């Protein structure tokens, strides 16, 4: 799906690494521009770009379903939502110092701890990592086709083996709808008048 299988393994490996590094740098650049940009419309577009880039990256990592969803949701729905919000709240961000010491410290410490945690993580892409050897993974890949009759293992895991998680996910989306309706329906004037209560 991603590459022509006939190519030599080593050549393919090098190309994958190169694209990897390229995409990751693009992601980093986008994220850094988001930090500095004051115009929120630009930020919304950059977030969309960030999502599209990560979707591309997901494709490279064989996660086609995830890539599809990220492109549809991150670059589509989120951006539309963001633009809808900005049309209501305005798109200028107040100037503030870009470097703030305390948050920077928290973030650095968190990042360093995470990096420390990855020191013993199984190497990237090896077939004998515990993730791939665990009985559930083996079961999914070997039994799914005759237990559920689906060639797409992601679908069978999503809808059947871990179908309950997906029900939870559907409920989360429904919860978001209930929440948005609770917060956004009704007339604006009443709400502004109602804010003085209890003062």
């Amino acid at each position, binding site marked *: 799906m991603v590459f022509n299988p006939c190519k030599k393994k080593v050549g393919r490996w090098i190309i994958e690494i190169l694209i990897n590094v390229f995409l990751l740098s693009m992601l980093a650049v986008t994220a850094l521009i988001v930090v500095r940009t004051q115009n929120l419309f630009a930020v919304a577009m950059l977030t969309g770009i960030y999502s599209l880039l990560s979707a591309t990256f997901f494709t490279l990592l064989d996660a086609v379903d995830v890539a599809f969803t990220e492109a549809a949701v991150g670059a589509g729905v989120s951006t539309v939502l963001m633009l809808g919000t900005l049309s209501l709240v305005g798109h200028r961000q107040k100037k503030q110092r870009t470097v703030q010491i305390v948050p920077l410290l928290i973030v650095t410490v968190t990042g360093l701890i995470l990096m420390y945690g990855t020191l013993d993580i*199984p190497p990237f892409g090896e077939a004998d990592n*515990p993730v*791939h050897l665990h009985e*559930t*993974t083996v079961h999914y890949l070997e039994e799914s086709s005759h237990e559920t009759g689906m060639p797409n293992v992601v679908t069978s895991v999503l809808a059947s083996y871990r179908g309950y998680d997906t029900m939870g996910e559907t409920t*989360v989306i429904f919860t978001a709808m*209930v929440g948005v309706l609770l917060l956004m329906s009704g007339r604006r004037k009443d709400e502004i008048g109602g804010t003085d209560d209890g003062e």
Partner: protein
Amino acid sequence: MMPHLPVMQVMVPLLAAPLCALVRNGRLAWAIAVASSWGAFWIAWEIFQVVHSIGAISYSLGGWTASEGGIEYRIDALGAFVLMVVTLVGAVVTPYALESVRKEVDKSKQALFYAAFLLCLAGLLGIVVTGDMFNVFVFLEISSLSAYALIGLGKDRRALRASYQYLIMGSVGATFIVIGIGMLYVMTGSLNMANLAILLPELPANRTIPVAFAFLTVGVCLKLALFPLHMWLPNAYTFAPSAVTAFIASTATKVAIYVLLRLFYTVFGADYSFLEMQLGTYLLPLSLIAIFSMSLVAIFQTNVKRMLAYSSLAQIGYIILGISLFSSTGMTASILHLFNHAVIKGCLFMALGCVMYRLNSVELDDMMGLGKKMPLTMGAFLVGGFGLIGVPFTAGFISKWYLIQGALEKGLWPVAVLVLLTSLMAVAYIWKVVETVYFSEDPGSVNSDCSEAPLGLLIPTWTLAILCVYFGIDATLTTFGASSAVASLMGIGS
């Protein structure tokens, strides 16, 4: 239907929620909510009995066992106990909500309010019954998202800001939890808690699992508002609608504590958490600071709801203190307090809801002389206040008794003294309210023409007040539930 009890526990409120959203009629939605929350309580009671007669129950969702890659529901004595706490509060608060919500929430939004309320309940129950790490995250988000929306419904505009702060902090917490789960998964390939408990000790010494442990702990502590990660809580409790405060204050943080216990004892194992990671050394001082500083802050509050919110933070400190002692007495104290505090705080916040119903305010200045005008409401408040302090013959006394015993067992007598001292601080802030309500002259301003709250509010409030006294006199049921919960946890741990 008996073997399906674990899944029905979650499905009853979860299925009722979309029905509430569909009916669009506040009263009908309320009826659905009451029916399903009582149903959930009945199921929890059945589960409690089953667990105590035949031991932990397991349920494979979709018919796939954990080794086939399915999601497993697993309820042991601790889970059954927490289910009782959550559903009890749910069953009492839902009837209460009718009058309270009619006053505080727009008519057009009432049906959706109950939908969100039930989703929150379903989410919390889902966290408790599940035996799968990722499923915890999914249900955590169901309960959190509905909680954000419910808090944002407060009439005061500061409710919006409180809700937003909670959303940001809660999402950071959830993301930390996801990172932690991810690291566990990368190292073992498993998401099932029981399976993780087997696989984790087999791993060679590494630097990843401690980091996963840290991220999970910090993530959950954000959700349960342990000092210093508590900033979101006071505003959220203060500005949310009364029924929401009563429900969330008595359940959401309790379930987060349950998750913490699950992680420490079931997933990582007690030896790893307390001996290798030295968890007690971090949690003990944090909890002491939380108890002391938050009690102190509570004394200086003029908004009674905010005062109780800070008191909640102190109570969370007590629960964490019991956990950090790492002894069966300490744990029993924590789990008992989990229940007792839920009952006490539910009662207190519901009494305040009654005040809110009549006065539209819970500022101390507006409550002068209220004791004569709303004797039943303030009576319930007084009972709850006694419970909070830990006066004998109230539920709060039992848990504090165990806590002090647990501290003395470990030879930590300064801790025991501090627990007593902070109880005096609770006396100080409760006394402030009592003095205003009973011993100040009514200036004849705000509350001059107010009367007792309607029965629809008083009956649920007094139910919890009576329970608070009942479990202070006859604590057999709660101590039995708590000690068997401790036994099930410690049994797995060792």
